[in-house]
């Protein structure tokens, strides 16, 4: 039974934020979703202080071994989330992690305070890939911005704070160290890599927003390297993600020091991918018990 930031998990596979809508999935798949929930914790899509409609389509594009997305964080805003979504997410049979994002410290504080005080919420993930409206800098690209944000948010809740790193930097480990020093409880990585494609039919960018983020197996080797670099730099537990599609892939991250892995794009191909991967991991571990110790999977 892995333990993560004091939360007991049934297995080490959770979902990546923004890649599973448990409310829609329950409508479509019925209670079988709950009976057989594929993840050991559920991470919400990122919510923002105010509602957002998301970006104009086209939002997604398939690439070799991956996809580009520019969804634009459609969500009901904090109030809508708390009123409409949270009660439904609370019915899931696993702990709930809520992902939040804002463009200034005051709004981030409001999110952390109001989400953090809800009993239904086990932990918060801070999506810091947005620009700070005061400094103009992308918080997660700057160690100092990240540390300052954490120092401001840390006192506002006793719930674990997970900082989700962007991979679009030269040294993700520097940002992870800043998160640790600011008081984060865990670090998750990677978010998507900046990417674009041209639609051969038009000669124009395939994604309406001009560019988006790359995910899927294509990015796995990059994710794994960033995880290893961050692992060497901080003591915090890590959530590893980026292109995990099988138990063997997940093992690469666990063997590299992740406490937990998250599955994103692969769920689009297989709505039960999380359970399949968790199951493959268990088989791998029972087949070669010598690895159990190394991987802290007992």
């Amino acid at each position: 039974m892995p333990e993560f930031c004091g939360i007991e998990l049934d297995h080490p596979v959770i979902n990546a934020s923004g890649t599973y809508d448990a409310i829609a999935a329950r409508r479509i798949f019925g209670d079988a979703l709950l009976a057989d929930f594929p993840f050991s914790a559920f991470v919400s899509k990122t919510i923002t202080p105010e509602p957002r409609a998301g970006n104009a389509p086209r939002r997604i594009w398939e690439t070799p071994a991956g996809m580009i997305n520019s969804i634009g964080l459609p969500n009901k805003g904090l109030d809508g989330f708390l009123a409409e979504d949270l009660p439904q997410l609370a019915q899931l049979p696993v702990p709930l992690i809520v992902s939040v994002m804002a463009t200034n410290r005051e709004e981030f504080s409001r999110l952390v305070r109001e989400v953090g005080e809800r009993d239904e919420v086990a932990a918060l993930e801070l999506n810091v890939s947005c620009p700070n409206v005061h400094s103009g800098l992308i918080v997660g690209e700057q160690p100092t911005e990240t540390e300052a944000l954490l120092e401001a948010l840390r006192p506002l809740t006793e719930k674990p704070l997970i900082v989700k790193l962007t991979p679009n930097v030269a040294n993700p480990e520097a940002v992870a160290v800043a998160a640790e020093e600011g008081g984060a409880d865990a670090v998750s990585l990677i978010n998507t890599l900046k990417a674009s494609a041209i639609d051969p039919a038009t000669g124009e960018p395939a994604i309406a927003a001009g560019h988006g983020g790359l995910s899927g197996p294509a990015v796995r080797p990059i994710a794994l390297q960033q995880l290893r670099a961050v692992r060497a730099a901080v003591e915090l537990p890590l959530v590893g993600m980026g292109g995990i599609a099988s138990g063997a892939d997940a093992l690469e991250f666990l063997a590299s020091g992740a406490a937990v892995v998250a599955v994103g794009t692969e769920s689009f191909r297989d709505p039960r991918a999380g359970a399949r991967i968790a199951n493959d991991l268990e088989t791998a571990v029972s087949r070669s018990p010598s690895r159990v110790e190394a991987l802290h999977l007992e």
Partner: protein
Amino acid sequence: MSAPFGRRACEVTANVSSGGYRIFSLRDREGPNPAPGQFYMLASEREWGEGGGRPYLPRAISVAEAIPAKDGVRLDFLVEGVGPGTDRLCELEAGERVWVTGPLGNSFSTPREVNPESAGAILIGGGIGIAPMAIWRRYLVERGIPLRVLLGFRNEAHSGGLNELFCAGGSLCPDVRLASEDGHAGHQGYVTDLLATMLAGDDATSAVVYSCGPPAMLEAVRALCAEHDVACELAMESPMACGFGACFGCAVPKPDGGYMRLCVDGPVVRGDAVAEVAHA
């Protein structure tokens, strides 16, 4: 009725060529009978995302016909090869297996459900969009609901499915009328010409229009129906990565701003619930 949770492997039982397209059949032992308008996310078990190549994500395909049998539902699909995913589906061989998630999405409403006053249905399909019209037509016929069917295609090379899905005893079903851009069959011109003529007639205004086809055709149908104040349901397409509400990739603009996810709030959309249909 909800879809089985997760994807399941279904066997390919047939794959035939039909006027430029292919029609293949799967034996679905686990899923429920789909409703007309619903779709499935499909990916062949082999040669699909192997090592993560393209095709990588599953592809959304409407069910064209569904026949329950002892050993499961036979699902028929009409596909046009336009890229790596549909090309691979076109090549499916009997005996191989396909990953299936679904049935997904909503379905058509009967004319009465749309409009209690309605006298019948007009189905208008174009190109590959005739697929969901086939199962919907059969459903309406079985319930004795009066209907007319208008089908349009560019040319003979894009007339796949016509014989298999809209003919009986070797000839076109009597309720079906054709249009072709090159004039080789039926009215020469757009199928929406036929709809325009029909809507201009008195009797059509109490009908409900159902349509599936290329975006330009759907937009013409939507605009014509709005002009004549006739209710319509459009079976739309948008890029889909997941089909079950997870990716938010399938956004379609709503008339009042904002977006709907076509995989959960569609693919069947009331004409007045959608903004102008984007087309090149």
